[in-house]
């Protein structure tokens, strides 16, 4: 996108995520032509929207649209995608003896969609099934972050009609999207802590003047920019290795910022009167969606050690 077009797109997205969530946000994104932007300029569409979703801690069907499109689904609008259980990035289904067992998660989008795509591991590689949402069993999960509307999805499907899909490729794009959402959450937590540090006076001076506080906040900005820079580079070549690395870094960074922000916000940040808790909750859940940072980081190390070599270096 050109600079003027990008500024307009960005402000439209930000207005939408700041004013609505869920079904209303889906409608607003439609109005803004987000899915057209996804076709025309995928990295911009994804990075701008998902960072904004994180900034405002709101929920939309965008991750499902993105994954459905990446899995070759024609009618991606009314179709949700069953996600892996937390921590994992492998498909949520498994084909065995003519049946497809499903055990995964859905976001709030599952309840709004008519159909669901289930990807399953099969002997010949991953296959996808597009099924009526009603053919799956959904159990609402409250858990740490009820606002995310997570549902546990189980099912037992006829395995005959599966079509081969590139799950790894789709999951990589999903990892980048969730990575941007984590960066949005981290930036917002840093800003909450920064503002508090400037406002809060102790010992006759704002706590922002204390080096212990300043260095925590500086450390947080370094973490955010490291994750953001790696995500941007990953879009040049969204290979599974780069996407997993960027998602792992984003998760670790957002968790680090959550810790620093919680400490700087101290007492007030521990109450539900202050918005921080909502960001912390979502950070901990999204860090685990499509591969937890702890798992992705160890997996990267295992791969490097096994091959005795690093992934290809980023070219200048």
């Amino acid at each position, binding site marked *: 996108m050109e600079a003027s077009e990008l500024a307009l797109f960005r402000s439209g997205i930000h207005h939408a995520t700041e004013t609505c969530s869920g079904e209303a946000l889906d409608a607003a994104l439609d109005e803004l032509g987000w899915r057209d932007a996804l076709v025309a300029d995928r990295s911009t569409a994804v990075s701008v929207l998902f960072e904004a979703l994180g900034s405002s801690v709101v929920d939309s069907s965008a991750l499902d649209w993105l994954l459905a499109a990446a899995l070759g689904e024609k009618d991606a609008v009314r179709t949700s995608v069953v996600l892996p259980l937390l921590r994992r990035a492998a498909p949520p289904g498994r084909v065995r003896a003519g049946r497809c067992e499903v055990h995964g998660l859905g976001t709030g989008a599952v309840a709004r969609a008519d159909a669901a795509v289930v990807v399953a591991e099969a002997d010949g590689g991953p296959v996808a099934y597009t099924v009526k949402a009603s053919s799956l069993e959904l159990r609402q999960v409250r858990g740490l972050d009820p606002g995310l509307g997570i549902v546990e999805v189980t099912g037992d499907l006829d395995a005959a009609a599966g079509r081969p899909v590139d799950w790894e490729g789709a999951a990589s794009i999903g990892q980048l999207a969730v990575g941007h959402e984590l960066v949005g959450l981290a930036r917002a937590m840093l800003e909450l802590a*920064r503002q508090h*540090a*400037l406002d809060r006076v102790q010992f006759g001076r*704002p706590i*922002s*003047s*204390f*080096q212990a506080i*300043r*260095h925590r*906040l*500086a*450390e947080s*900005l*370094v973490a955010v*920019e*490291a*994750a953001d*820079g*790696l995500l*941007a*580079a990953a879009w040049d070549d969204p290979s599974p290795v780069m996407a997993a*690395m960027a998602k*792992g*870094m984003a998760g*670790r960074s957002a968790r680090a910022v959550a810790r620093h922000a919680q400490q700087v916000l101290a007492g007030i940040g521990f109450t539900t009167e202050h918005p921080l808790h909502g960001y912390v909750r979502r950070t901990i859940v999204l860090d685990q969606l499509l591969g937890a940072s*702890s798992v*992705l*980081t*160890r*997996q*990267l*190390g*295992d791969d*490097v*050690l096994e091959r*005795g*070599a*690093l*992934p290809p*270096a*980023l070219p*200048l």
Partner: protein
Amino acid sequence: MELDAFKVAVDAWLDEHEHELASDYEGGGTLDQQVAQLRKVMGMAYAAGFMRMGWPERAGGLGGSNLLRAYLGEVLTARDLVEAGFYSLPEVLAPTMIDYAPETLAAEMVPKLLSGEEIWCQGFSEPGTGSNLGSLACRATHTDAGWRINGQKVWTSLAQYAQRCVLLTRTGTLESAHRGITAMFIDMDSPGITVRPIETMHGAEEFCEVFYDDVVVPLDRVLGEVDGGWSIAMDLLPYERSTALWHRASYLHRRLEQLVSAAPAGTLDPTGVGEATQLLWAFRARSRATQRRLAAGETLGSETSIDKVLVATAEQAIFELVGEGLGPEVATGDDPVSARWRAEFLYSRAATIYGGSAEIQRNIIARRLLALGDDR
């Protein structure tokens, strides 16, 4: 020449001259060997024209983007032909000369630096002036014969090899702080200069103390304005955190890769390796974006402190792993390859100290990028 064509040409030239370019020592070599190797490689790359690319024509260069310089340093480091830190010194010194020296002086001197004919050093730090550069005391007094310099510098890299020095001096009162500083271009063979190398824990005496006793410097060797040296130092620091850091990334990549292939199975924690790899990639992504901003004509500023924090963090994470995976080599290996791991393991301790300490970088980030106001 465009970057892609440059890469092809440089790579082909490096392949063709592989044997002449290679060092004649095993492991890291002595400091004398490293400096000789640096001058040889720079001389060959200058004669072939590559070393002149990315530098302006008025200073003996052949023009073109800074990305060309970034690539040349990256590939020379990746092939282990130069010591990255020494190779990158011109990345800080040459821009200062090009931007602030009288035009004829820059045109005469910069080619000597780029061709490896001369080594230059940078006289900034003093015994009483570490992080607080504005307090420097090395005095320059105006006389009819020229500037008369008296004082002491410390941590001056390669001063014992250097023919020239970019020196920061005090020309105002001490109370004038950053307003009374003047930069000068000094001939290191001037009478009154004494260089004493410092023995450091990593074993190479690359840092020096330099004493100035009534050293006379011609009046036309002032860089920029008299009492305007602070702005030169401030303009130069972002350079220290851009192309030079891209070269450092290439060094870290080579060493991490050598580590994971050399460390015995089971000696490295996979999570630690994963974290260090992510950090290195994140730093490289960030540094590449900085290179591209520089190429687009943007002025670099305080945001490069983030690059500097990232490179130091990555370097120490990687060498912590060296201490684990190659612990016995670092501790008791006396062969040249082990000695090199040991020296570099120890050198990494300084990554959060030199070039603006980790604390100073965080202070800059807090004040300039997060607008947290005064810290008192």
